[in-house]
């Protein structure tokens, strides 16, 4: 089994096609696509530069707002962001292919030496530690470096990039592309410490003593346990481990019949990956109904096209040697989030035959680490940070990304990392 099965879900545009598409853009003023983008990329600006044949200018316009413009162009749920906001929906219906145009410009940038303009900012002596090597930290580090600060990224994994490297489905973003961005940020002068697990191998106290400000961009922990009998079986592999293992080529084995548990975008990624890796049947169990499923509509559609079998109102209660035992659910009164709470139907137990189970019911909070950060207020396990500056209740600590927002898109992490960098810069000067 090779990863060749993972053909790109959105193949690149050819040069001529990109120009034709770019010319279709109306060049809206204060464009809705730009407003919808958490990083506020000036979309009409970079698109018109594609049309004018100024690809370098186009790529720099993107990077100016979003240093991870390459990965965002591939992984962003553009349907609900820029392309969802495109005025073309109300005009000739087909939105501009903003994601693919952005990718076109970014591919040009990375295939022409990934040269950023030389920063005019004077060097500053203040040191900032970014904990975590994912999109939030990388974005924060790049922006601070651009302003002349001394930045070190600490990452527990052997390679930086976070979920861009280890967690995003292969047909959206390959680890090599994530590494291009990491290398570009390193070339800006950001130091990267790999395999350093702050809080265990490196005490937080030491970081606090050595650095003037700390950015927490450590994301979330492993997948939440199902907390049902049989979960410790070797046939149970949590979704993030499963995706990281196949993406890094460590383990591309998959069962013949696979059951994925959960209704989010990661569950869909895992189910699709299982299919692409050769599973004959892939079942996805979700305890609520189709309309309550949190995955994006286009992800659901993609999974249906891949032949994933969806089981609504179904919850696993035990894992056996050759099956998952499930129970039917019904929706009761709304809970505090306003969603109707699912409740088991007594005596409705049934079995789905399988030889692999992939839980994907959300990630745990990294409480053990976060509690070491003294004076940083947590709420429901998430760091409380000011929306505009990323500053926490301990003024030396700033935070952004999944550890603050509970798990959103790459582009949200990039935006929060950058806002925190601006907050740090303001606080330090």
């Amino acid at each position, binding site marked *: 089994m090779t990863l060749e099965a993972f053909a790109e879900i959105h193949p690149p545009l050819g040069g001529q096609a990109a120009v034709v598409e770019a010319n279709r853009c109306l060049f809206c003023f204060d464009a809705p696509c730009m407003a919808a983008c958490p990083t506020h990329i000036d979309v009409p600006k970079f698109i018109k530069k594609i049309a004018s044949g100024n690809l370098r200018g186009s790529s720099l316009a993107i990077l100016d707002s979003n240093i991870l413009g390459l990965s965002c162009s591939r992984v962003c749920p553009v349907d609900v962001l820029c392309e969802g906001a495109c*005025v073309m929906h109300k005009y000739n219906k087909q939105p501009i292919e903003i994601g693919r145009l952005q990718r076109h410009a970014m591919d040009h940038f990375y295939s022409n030496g990934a040269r950023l303009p030389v920063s005019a900012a004077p060097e500053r002596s203040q040191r900032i530690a970014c904990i975590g090597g994912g999109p939030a930290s990388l974005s924060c580090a790049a922006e601070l470096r651009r302003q002349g600060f001394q930045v070190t990224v600490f990452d527990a994994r052997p390679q930086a990039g976070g979920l861009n490297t280890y967690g995003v489905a292969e047909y959206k973003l390959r680890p090599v592309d994530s590494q291009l961005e990491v290398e570009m940020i390193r070339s800006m002068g950001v130091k990267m410490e790999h395999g350093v697990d702050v809080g265990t191998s490196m005490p937080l106290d030491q970081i606090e003593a050595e650095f003037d400000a700390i950015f927490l961009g450590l994301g979330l922990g492993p997948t939440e346990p199902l907390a049902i009998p049989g979960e410790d079986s070797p046939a149970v592999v949590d979704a993030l481990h499963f995706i990281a293992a196949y993406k890094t080529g460590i383990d591309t084995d998959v069962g013949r019949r696979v059951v994925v548990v959960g209704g989010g975008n990661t569950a869909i990624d895992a189910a699709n990956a299982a299919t692409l890796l050769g599973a004959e049947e892939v079942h996805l169990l979700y305890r609520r109904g189709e309309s309550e499923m949190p995955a994006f509509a286009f992800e659901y559609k993609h999974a249906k096209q891949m032949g994933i079998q969806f089981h609504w109102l179904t919850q696993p209660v035990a894992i056996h040697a050759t099956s998952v035992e499930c129970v039917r659910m019904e929706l009761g009164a709304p809970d505090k989030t306003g969603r109707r709470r699912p409740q088991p139907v007594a005596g409705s137990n049934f079995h789905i035959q399988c030889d692999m189970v992939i839980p994907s019911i959300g990630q745990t909070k990294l409480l053990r680490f976060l509690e070491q950060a003294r004076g940083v207020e947590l709420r429901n396990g998430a760091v409380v940070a000011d929306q505009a500056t990323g500053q926490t209740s301990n003024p030396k600590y700033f935070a952004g990304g999944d550890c603050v927002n509970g798990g959103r898109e790459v582009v949200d992490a990039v935006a929060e990392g950058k806002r925190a960098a601006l907050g740090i810069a303001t606080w330090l000067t």
Partner: protein
Amino acid sequence: MRAFDAGWGGAVWKTLGDPIVNVSSRYSSVDWNGQRMMGLNNIELITDRPLAVNLREIAEVKKRYPGHAVIASLMVESKREAWHTIVRQSEDAGADGLELNFGCPHGMSERGMGSAVGQVPEYAQMITEWVKEAARTPVLVKLTPNISDIRTVARAAKRGGADGFSAINTINSITGIDLDTLTPRPDVGGLSAHGGYCGPAVKPIALHLVQQICGDAESKLPVSGIGGISGWRDAAEFILLGCGTVQVCTAAMHYGFRIVEDMIDGLSNWMDEKGFRTIDDFVGLSLPKVTEWKHLDLNYKIVARIHEEKCIGCDLCYVACWDGAHQCIHLNGAHHTPAQVESAGRARITSTPTGKYPPYSTPVARIPKVDEAECVGCNLCALVCPVTGCITMERIENGLPKESWEDRGRNV
């Protein structure tokens, strides 16, 4: 012959003459926003093939298509004998008319032919007279636009006995420069020369010059309209300004004679809709509607009106009015400058929506409002609006009587 089969009634056979010289390459074009050949430029002179071959072919075409008009386009040295000879040869071959190429702006003009003749009324008159001495068929003089007042040559040609005009010939042009080699296009071994510009881009210029000729009592002769005609709408416009026939070249070079079908079909459907039975029913109907600025009503007042239900929120009208007009279109009910609007946009904190799916409706704040008291009725917003019928220009009844600049001068 393909054009005749496709439905055209006649052809101008371009261009018979002597001597025969040409270069390669010969054409260059201007693309616009991804569309090819908005304008075409050529540095081609006349036909590459010997006169004898052309004459033989004219005779053959006339034999096969006796009912179709073939007009020979002519350009020779400014000698009476040379003109007499080519006129005779063309007519002997069967040409139904002659078009004197007094317009070619490149190459030939340096040797006293083409627009070198067309820019000097005396020469134009003289050569027209020479041709008329020999000609038995109607003589059209093709006019160059590369002149301050096209009517001076038109009047001279009329005095020389011309039976009609064709207008316009191509416009002096350099279409662009190759930014790698720094050589203008078309490149002839590292050098270029100015050429003649044609195609859709020149239509407005051509319409104006046609109106100048057709609206001039001293130039009054039949006119064959030329200049960027690509479809039936263009043809109708030239005819409305007084042309009895039109000529098409660039569009056929671009798409082939397939364009003929819709030129006929579209024009015919439009004529039915308007109740015109023949071309003559609408020749020149728009001429009386072109006047001099001094006769326009200064008290006629229109303002822009934005139809909210059609607005897609692109705000192109807003920025156009602010940066390019009278700053009377506003967003969100407030008089914010574009810079203020943009910086507010950048300061907004957005995150990926959950549970809300597009298409999103146009936020009310993005629907522009017109300050009608400030609006001067310039049309710019309606021109930039991508949605048909979203911005209309509405008449404001101000109760004032019609008053032109001329009237006002008289009234003071």
